[in-house]
């Protein structure tokens, strides 16, 4: 396979392939972070996660249309506004859904799963009615298109760098919120002992709602970022759902670090296998490996061993 190429060429390809793995890693991290917050801290399975992402994507689409129609001069900057709006829109929907639905189901995780699946169907149909069945094309600012030539042969896609920076930024923000902010302390306290947390004056109801909202908001930002690399359509959210859940479960549900480590290992495995095998088989093998490891180690990669 490699005999026809010079070392330089091979080196460049492998460098770019490594970079492709990192982009995939960032995509996984963005997909999974919101879910990891919700699943890890609240034990809620949100099957509508993909639809919250797509809401962010549609918000981005609307923002780009608004900018190109009214303030074309600032078009290059619209993406940042769009991400903030995506966070707010998906987050607000998350708050509402928590209030209307999730809070009644905390003791029944499997039922949450079904109810949120129902929610995902409803959201899909709403998107279809509002935006049409077709995918919408989101115009990306010029500066985000194309690639940076690092050397003669190595080129790095700009949107890939953007996704990576965003993944790092959001991970840090989430980490900060979880471990440095008052909200984070409260969330962790509730996660450990709900009754006690309530007894010492933490408003558990509001903290739950906020947690769900923030998780959904992060999903919205991810969806916004994915307009650069994927499609925006009513059913596009479904494409992400299996991967996302496996990343979170594989990482060990309660651990943010685990989620990131799991995103890293799955993305690298998939990216390497995709390079050496045909696409479909790579996907099947990746999924089988993940499931196989989960069978050997059901608590995931990074679950703490706890006294029962």
């Amino acid at each position, binding site marked *: 396979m490699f005999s026809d190429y010079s070392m330089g060429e091979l080196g460049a390809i492998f460098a770019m392939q490594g970079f492709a793995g990192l982009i995939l890693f960032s995509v996984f991290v963005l997909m999974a972070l919101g879910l990891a917050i919700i699943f890890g801290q609240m034990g809620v399975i949100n099957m509508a996660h993909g639809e919250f992402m797509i809401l962010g994507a549609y918000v981005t689409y609307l923002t780009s249309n608004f900018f190109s129609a009214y303030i074309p001069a600032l078009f290059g900057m619209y993406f940042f506004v769009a991400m903030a709006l995506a966070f707010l829109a998906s987050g607000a929907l998350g708050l509402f859904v928590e209030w209307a639905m999730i809070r009644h189901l905390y003791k029944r995780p499997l039922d949450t799963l079904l109810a949120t699946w129902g929610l995902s169907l409803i959201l899909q149909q709403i998107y279809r009615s509002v935006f049409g069945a077709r995918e919408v094309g989101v115009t990306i600012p010029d500066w985000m298109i194309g690639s940076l030539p690092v050397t003669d042969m190595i080129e790095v896609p700009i949107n890939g760098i953007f996704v990576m920076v965003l993944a790092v930024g959001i991970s840090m923000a989430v980490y900060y919120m979880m471990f440095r902010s008052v909200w984070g302390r409260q969330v962790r306290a509730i996660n450990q002992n709900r009754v006690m947390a309530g007894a010492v004056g933490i408003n558990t109801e509001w903290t739950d709602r906020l947690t769900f909202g923030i998780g959904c908001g992060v999903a919205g930002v991810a969806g916004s970022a994915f307009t650069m690399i994927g499609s925006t359509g009513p059913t596009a959210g479904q494409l992400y759902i299996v991967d996302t859940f496996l990343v979170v479960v594989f990482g060990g549900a309660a651990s943010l670090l685990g989620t990131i480590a799991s995103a890293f290992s799955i993305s690298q495995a998939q990216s390497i296998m995709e390079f050496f095998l045909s696409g479909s088989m790579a996907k099947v093998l990746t999924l089988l490996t993940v499931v196989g490891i989960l069978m050997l180690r059901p608590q995931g990669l990074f679950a703490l061993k706890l*006294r029962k």
Partner: protein
Amino acid sequence: MSTSNPNFVLMVEGLTVSFDGFKAVNDLSFYVEPNECRVIIGPNGAGKTTVLDLICGRTKATSGSVNFKGQELLNMREDQIVHAGVGRKFQTPSVYEDLTVFENLELSYPKGHGVFGALTFRRDDQVKARIKEIAETIFLDDQLDEKAAYLSHGQKQWLEIGMLLIQDPELLMLDEPVAGMSVAERKKTAELLNRIIQDRSVIVIEHDMGFVEDIATRVTVLHQGKTLSEGSMERVQNDPKVIEVYLGH
């Protein structure tokens, strides 16, 4: 190491378990004789419940040995340990709330424990008679057809004890059997326990000293996963180490 000794029903030797480096039980050894009622006491976090979890297989030990009548329990599955003759009651009453008292007891009846045994299990007269008998022992013969969910807290505790009795274990382990009971219930329970510990060995975890005095043959005091003191109630109560860490407070 673990040679069987006919003088002891249970020999725990060098038992250790660590959770991420924290040794909840540390090189613990103790021995239980036939028909003995051993009470384990100790401050919160001393590792009392963990010891029971280790013996019945709920938690896997890091090292050590638990020998029950010549069998090494540490390599066995929970259900195999039960079949060997060890019964365990949990701290919070765990009964099947959706089933009736009768069904709760029936499921603990030591027959039909395999998949196909359970499919073909018949509720014959022998089973019914045995359940009736146990129900009388645990003061629940009038509630046989009631769902367990509707029992009082104390009654649930009794039901769980009944579920263990019907198995007729040689070693019975009880985790705080009188916790959360009213004074009257507590008295009745002590009476019940005194009756059922006659022909078997029992390990009890309990905080209530009056109650301990009532039933204990010997007492083991645990502190930070280790034995602090062991012996009769009187001896333990007068041990200065014990007074310092536990009774003195």
